[in-house]
Structure formats: C-alpha cells, structure tokens
C-alpha cells in the first residue's frame, strides 16, 4: 500500500475549500428501488469531481455524493459490509440525540421532516462560486434523478453566503481548519503541522500511527470519508437582545460577542487582537489563524470557554492527557436563510442558520468527541457547569465566565441561541467505491 493520497479517486468535497462567495444546494433522496438507485449512481459519477481536478483549479461547480446507513442498505450493500461501518454511522444521528445534547427543542421529535428518519438515503451536496454554475450542475443531477421512478427527492436546502460574507450571528467563519498531509495546501496555523491524511480520508495512516478502522470491502471503504451534516437554526434576535442587555454600549456588545466566539466578527482572533477588532487582520488568511494559547492560560485574552477555543484548544491542553490532533475535523458549513437586518432585535420568524458539515475519518473521536466533551461539557476546562455559550445546549440557566482584569465577568442565564433542526451521518465513498455500488447485483447480498 502506498501512502500517497489517491487524489484521482477521492471526492473533492472534503479536501477542497469552500469558495467565497459561494452558493450551495443540498438534496436528499430516497431509494425505493435498489436497481434504480444503482443506475442513478452510475449516471451521477460523471458529474463528480475527483479531488485533484479541484485542487489544481477551482471548477465552476462540484458535487459530493454520500449515503446514510439506510441508503447503503437500500442499494443492496451486503450485511457483512454494512456491519463494518463506524457505530455512530450505523445508529444514525437521531439515535445519538441524547448523547449529542439534541434534546428539548433540538430533539428529533421536533426535527424538520424527513431529517433523522429512515427515508434519508442519499445526500447530494453541490457548491459553486456563482448561481448559474450551481444551477447547471444541480439541474444535470436532477435530470438524472428524474429518469428513475424508484428515486424520490425528499428534501432540498439552498444555501448562500450572506452579502456581508459572514454567518447569521455576524461572524466570518470557516477559518480554523487543519491542513491535511499530502494535499499540498500549507497550514494556516504554522503552530499546527498538517494532520495525517488518515484523520480525514480512510485507507491511510492516521495520527495514531495505524490505519483508521475501514469499512469493507476495501474498494468501498478506501478513499471514503464520513460526512456529518446538521441543520442548525440560529436565534439571531435572541442573541442580539441578550448581548444588548448585558452590555453598557456597542463597544462592549462587540467585545462580549467576540469573547463568546474567540474571534471578532471580522475573523480577527482574540489571541492576536485582545482589545479591539482588527478588520485587516481578520481579512488576512496568512495571519488570522497563526496563533496558540500558551501565553494565555487564564483566558484573559480568549476565554477557555469561547466557542473556537473549546472546539480547537490548540496547545491549551498540552498538560492534560489529551492529544488534540485526535480531535480535529474539516468543516464545510454554509449559511441558509436571509440575514436579519442590522440592528433588528425582534424575531422576524425567518428560519436562518448554518448547514454544519463535518468531514473526517472518525465520526466518534472527532465530531462526537468535540461536540460532547468540549462544546456541551465544561469539565475539561474546570467549569463543569458551563457549556459553549454560542452553540451549547443551553437551558436558560447557564453561565459563561469571561476572565478580565481586575475581576472576571460572569454572564448568566444564557438562552439557547442554536436549535438543531435535524441531521444525519453519511459516508462519501471514493469514485471506485461508487462504481462498486453501481455494479452491485441482487446476488451480491
């Protein structure tokens, strides 16, 4: 086995940065007839881009195809192979709800249909820098879907970057990403050497030095990656009102907002710009991710409980039994819904938020670990009572500690700002894996 990444086989989505600006469309399909499902895959393969093609030059649009456990089953994948997938994937996201903190308003019984149901089989994610290119590729995929009566389109979500270039809460996102060995893109954080390819793509050594557990047969598992998507509604008016109530003035409002995230709205990190936003820094891809937390153990610049410091503590936990490199992930989130106009504090009833997308080889120790141990829980920072102030499963009684000279500030009664509308664990095979799926016959069961 060679360790060189097979960029001609890996689907582009996991390894290619989202363009900016971007537009995107997510489509979910149900396979009522295995034969039609396999024929559809055959028709979709020519529309897909291998990673190499997009790393060399950004194409006009690219699509990623992924399957749920139910989807693989509906296509006639043999049980032995189904059994070989990661346990979280086999259970599905709805079954993991209690574990993930998806309770109350975020619970699966409140999810948007058909998310979390056994009807979700195939997920198609298409991204493009402009609407015309997106429409063209989505339309080509739609024509393929329409050819097969055994396929139903059961959900569609359109996404686009807001005019501000920011997400609904007002922050630039998608900044903190690990570089992946063998892809050739330089790390944006020189303090974090590229992670092993096997952390993101199956079939290659990972950070443990071994090979990640890979589904069988080899042709299906190799060059595949797990994809987690979640539709996360953001309560922007509640968020703005809360900050307004806590702050004496606009400047403090912006500061508290930044303390919650770990970055200013422009993207400038508190670690480098502790006192005031620095839009130039926020816009500079070379500098805005070049930092560690070792000079700030008490969190006076960036609180230990800030979202980005929780999600990637960098060197904060070097003295604990934690190997942060085992808990990194590729994020490909996109925004949906219109922006709440500046200054509006009343809820206009519009559904807006992000489609959170994770790509990685280990849904358990990457996505679920970060979500449960670091975002939902505060034990690791010595604050068991606190969860992530921005995205944690708040029940309205939570606190957030902002270290400060001379006396720390403690925000109280934090309402939930993010509500899970649903999601799914998927698997995106390599192109050979897709061909294998397309070639399945009734006898292979």
């Amino acid at each position, binding site marked *: 086995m060679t360790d060189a990444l097979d960029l001609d086989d890996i689907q582009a989505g996991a390894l290619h940065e989202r363009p900016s600006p971007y537009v995107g469309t997510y489509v979910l399909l149900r396979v009522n007839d295995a034969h039609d499902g396999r024929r559809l895959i055959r028709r979709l393969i020519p529309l897909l881009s291998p990673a190499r093609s997009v790393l060399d030059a950004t194409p006009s649009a690219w699509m990623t195809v992924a399957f749920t456990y139910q989807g693989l089953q509906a296509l006639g994948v043999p049980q032995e192979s189904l059994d070989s997938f990661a346990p979280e994937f086999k259970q599905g996201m709805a079954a993991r709800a209690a574990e993930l903190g998806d309770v109350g308003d975020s619970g699966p019984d409140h999810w948007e249909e058909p998310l979390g149901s056994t009807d979700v089989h195939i997920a198609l994610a298409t991204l493009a820098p402009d609407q015309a290119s997106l429409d063209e590729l989505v339309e080509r995929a739609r024509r393929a879907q329409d050819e097969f009566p055994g396929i139903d389109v059961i959900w569609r979500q359109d996404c686009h970057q807001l005019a501000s270039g920011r997400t609904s809460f007002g922050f630039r996102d998608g900044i903190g990403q690990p570089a992946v060995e063998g892809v050739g893109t330089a790390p944006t954080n020189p303090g974090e050497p590229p992670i092993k390819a096997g952390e993101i793509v199956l079939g290659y050594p990972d*950070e*443990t*030095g*071994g090979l990640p557990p890979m589904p069988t047969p080899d042709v299906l598992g190799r060059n595949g990656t797990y994809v987690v998507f979640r539709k996360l509604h953001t309560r922007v008016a509640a968020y703005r009102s809360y900050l307004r109530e806590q702050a004496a003035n606009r400047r403090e409002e912006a500061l508290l907002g930044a303390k919650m995230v770990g970055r200013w709205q422009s993207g400038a990190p508190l670690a480098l710009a502790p006192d005031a936003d620095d839009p130039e820094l926020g816009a500079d891809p070379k500098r805005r991710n070049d930092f560690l937390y070792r000079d700030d153990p008490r969190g006076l610049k960036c609180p230990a409980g800030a979202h980005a410091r929780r999600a990637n503590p960098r060197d904060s936990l070097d003295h604990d*039994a934690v190997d942060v490199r085992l808990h990194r992930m590729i994020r490909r989130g996109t925004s949906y819904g219109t922006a709440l106009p500046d200054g509006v504090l009343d809820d206009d009833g519009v559904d807006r938020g992000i489609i959170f997308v994770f790509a990685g080889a280990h849904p358990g120790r990457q996505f679920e670990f970060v979500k449960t141990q670091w975002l939902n829980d505060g*034990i690791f920072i010595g604050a068991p009572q606190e969860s992530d102030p921005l995205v944690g499963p708040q029940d309205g009684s939570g606190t957030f500690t902002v270290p400060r000279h001379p006396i720390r500030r403690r925000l109280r009664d934090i309402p939930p700002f993010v509500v899970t509308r649903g999601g799914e664990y998927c698997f995106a095979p390599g192109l050979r894996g897709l061909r294998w799926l397309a070639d399945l016959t009734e006898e292979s069961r």
Partner: protein
Amino acid sequence: MTAEAPSRPGLQVGPTSEFSLFFHVKPGHGEALRESLEALQAAPGYRPGDYDLPIGTIHEARFVPFDNDTRLLFATSFDGSWDAYMLDFASKPLKLFDAIFQNVEGYDGLPDLEAVKDFIRSAQLTAGGYSRNYGGTVKEIRKAERVNKAFQQVLDDPEAAELLQAPALAPLLAEASD
C-alpha cells in the same frame, strides 16, 4: 453540564468517574512488576509531594499488586468520560505506564492504539459502589487551593480586619475567624 450519559461506563459522581482496571501479571513477572512500579513512583510528578501527575484530570492513582503479585489493580478517579478519552490515554500518558504493562497479559504496546484500547477496555470493571467527599474537578480544586492560599495571605496582613468589614466582603469575613 453533567447530565448522566447512559453509555458512559464507570460510576459517576458529579463530573468525576471511577476507573478501575484489573490485569493478570505474566507468570514470573512479579518482581519486574514491583521494580517498574518503584521506578514510576520515583519519576518526576509521581514522587510523593510532587502533586503533578502528567494526566491533569485524575484526582489520584494507585497500582495495587495482589494475589501474590499475580494480579494488578489500577484504580483512579477521572474528571469527565474516560471512555471518550481512551485513545488520548493510549496515545500520550500510556508511554509512562509502558514499563509496567509490559509485565501483564494482553499488552502488545504501541503503536497499535486500537489494540491498546481493547486491552484497557477488557481490563475495566465498574465499581459496585462509588462515593466522593468533594464535588470539584482537579482544575477546580487547584483553583480553590490557590484562592485559599491567597486568602490566608490577606488574613496575615494587619490591615485585613478593617478591610474585610466592607459589606461586599461579608462572605469572606465569615470565613476569616478560624
């Protein structure tokens, strides 16, 4: 958030869970095991009085050879879900225990982390009872120690009695008389 997570093995009290591993010592390795335990005990961080175990989230740790050194117990109290951190243990602190585990059955050592994980899981038994005398995590206890030390320093200052009369300091004054 310390909600009981159903799949988390080990009994939990507040943020802390008990973690006990029972190993079989390889035949004839009793003496070597004792030597490796003594070496660990002499290592920086583990020495009595160092209070600086390289795993910042355990309250204490003990290795107990028993049944004439044919068995070995490792017992500790861990802040958080040790099951979630299993690979982290295997990847970082395990190296310190490597010399000890060389003397027990079923341990092949690194680099096969998945095998090490199975080795640990198969040795784990959940307690029949587990109680604690304080609720904090190691990080909170350390903070509390620092705060108390600072408070005692303040009390040693002759001006403390007067300054602590300020109404906002009433809770501190209540702790100042002994």
